[in-house]
């Protein structure tokens, strides 16, 4: 414990406070206060521009929510999307990381290629894929029809199951690279001597992977998984740009549903209730994240 009576320490402390104040002010204004206000809004009735004064309505919006099939659908869509894309991203990420950890020529270019999908805006990535998925003029149908695999164009984004699959593909394409980079960093931190010891012990390549690589990657994999899960749980521009939640509501994520309720249906307070529920789901995940990190130390 620092001894605060010393003028030296006091000066250091005051400097610290001065240094951290701007950051805390912005974080509270942009992140903390809005969440608290959303909670307040979700328990009342008001209008966006303040023309209708706030009145408390208790749990009314949450009751509506509980009985609303579209809300449950969006929650389900979000969970299915997360549950499908995360394991695929993980598998692809590990594969890519192991690949990039090998020595070969033009490695820099390969690593760059893998980084690009992550670096570009999701919204624009999604547009590119939507163009490739296009039923009449898209790359996929053109190739499929020309090669004779199918004789009628596939409606990639118009069928409920296919649309979810198409969306998962875009997510996996976009974020496997993030997984790969984190896992690659983990791979590179495994001392080479361990593999040499493994060879002296008589391990095969596969045994090296199972006995050394995989167990030692547990930490980075867990971190990548949780970060990505939280991203997937709040996915917004992907369905917004790919399908607008369609067909009907087959790909309408929680974020997209909340956005539509607030800004298309102008049901401000009901939207706040959805947003609060989503916040709770993700906050639970982030707590898990922090607890995991704590345990790691």
């Amino acid at each position, binding site marked *: 414990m620092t001894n605060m009576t010393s003028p030296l320490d006091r000066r250091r402390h005051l400097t610290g406070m001065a240094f951290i104040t701007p950051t805390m002010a912005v974080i509270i204004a942009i992140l903390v206060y809005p969440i608290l206000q959303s909670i307040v809004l979700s328990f009342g009735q008001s209008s966006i521009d303040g023309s209708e004064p706030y009145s408390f309505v208790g749990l009314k919006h949450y009751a509506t929510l509980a009985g609303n099939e579209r809300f449950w659908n969006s929650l389900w869509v979000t969970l299915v999307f997360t549950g499908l894309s995360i394991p695929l991203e993980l598998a692809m990420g590990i594969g890519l990381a192991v690949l990039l950890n090998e020595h070969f020529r033009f490695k820099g270019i390969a690593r760059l290629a893998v980084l690009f999908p992550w670096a570009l805006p999701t919204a624009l990535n999604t547009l590119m894929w939507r163009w490739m998925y296009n039923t009449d003029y898209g790359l996929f149908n053109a190739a499929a029809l020309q090669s004779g695999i199918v004789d009628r164009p596939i409606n990639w984004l118009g069928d409920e199951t296919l649309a979810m699959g198409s969306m998962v593909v875009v997510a996996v394409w976009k974020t496997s690279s993030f997984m790969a980079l984190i896992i690659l960093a983990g791979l590179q931190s495994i001392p080479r001597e361990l593999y040499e010891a493994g060879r002296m012990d008589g391990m095969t390549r596969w045994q090296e992977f199972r006995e050394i690589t995989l167990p030692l990657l547990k930490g980075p994999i867990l971190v990548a998984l949780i970060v990505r899960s939280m991203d997937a749980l*709040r996915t917004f521009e992907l369905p917004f740009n790919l399908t607008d939640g369609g067909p009907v509501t087959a790909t309408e994520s929680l974020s997209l549903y909340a956005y539509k309720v607030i800004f298309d249906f102008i049901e401000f307070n009901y939207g706040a209730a959805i947003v609060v529920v989503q916040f709770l789901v993700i906050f639970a995940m982030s707590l898990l994240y922090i607890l995991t990190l704590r345990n790691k130390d």
Partner: protein
Amino acid sequence: MTKRPRFGLYALVILSVVISFLPIIWLVLTSLKTTEGIYAWPPQYLPDPFTLKNYINIFTNSPELLLYVLNSFIVALGCTVVALSFGGMAGYALSRLGMRRAGVLMVFILAVSMFPPVSLLPSLFQTFLNLGLLNTYTGLIIAHTGLFLPFTVWMLASYFATLPPEIEEAARMDGMGFFRIFWSIVIPLSWPGFVATGLIVFIFSWNEFPLALVLMTQNAMRTAPVGISLYPGEYAFPWETISTATVIAIVPILIITAIFQKQIVGGLTAGAGK
């Protein structure tokens, strides 16, 4: 000892590279086709005839698409500068100035960084509306700064922690105050950390969607990802224009990523390892 077959390795590498680039390549090819070429059957894989007409059209007929890119630049740059300034000071305070409960503050900052942006929308929209910050660069810059400050603080704090404290101690013996030390010792020594963090924050801000969508309601103020996504055409999407505008909007990011690949990867993985 025994060399494993390299052929399989290279095949896998080439496959990954092609898949990573495929949508971008297809997009670039589309932007170089004529409208007839885009909608032709049998499909054109390579532009025939090759044309720059779409690019010329954007510059002459749809300047708003260029305006989106400019808006993105202003917002991302502003956000990066503010986030680095504030985050640098906060990171220094948390890692070096012996703050009490610095650990708790770090965890608090990490926790708030996980708030879903959509959860912020109802309140932020209302507040910005009341303060007249909708459709202003200032507004979106503040919002993005808030969104990405936690990341900035963590990155820079862990970077500062790697600096040998002896240099700062020597500076104190030389008679420098904390501000002076931060300004003339710590910042010059930490520029690799600032570069890596700044690049990632710039990319984050450039790519951000939900807040940019909601806080910029006027067409002329939209950022590139939003503006292009909402480009007119409810039913028939003008793909020749969209593909060209998208190429223009992603080129800056592609260049930044290509040049600063090492720094970005280093920053990302360091951030995630913490």
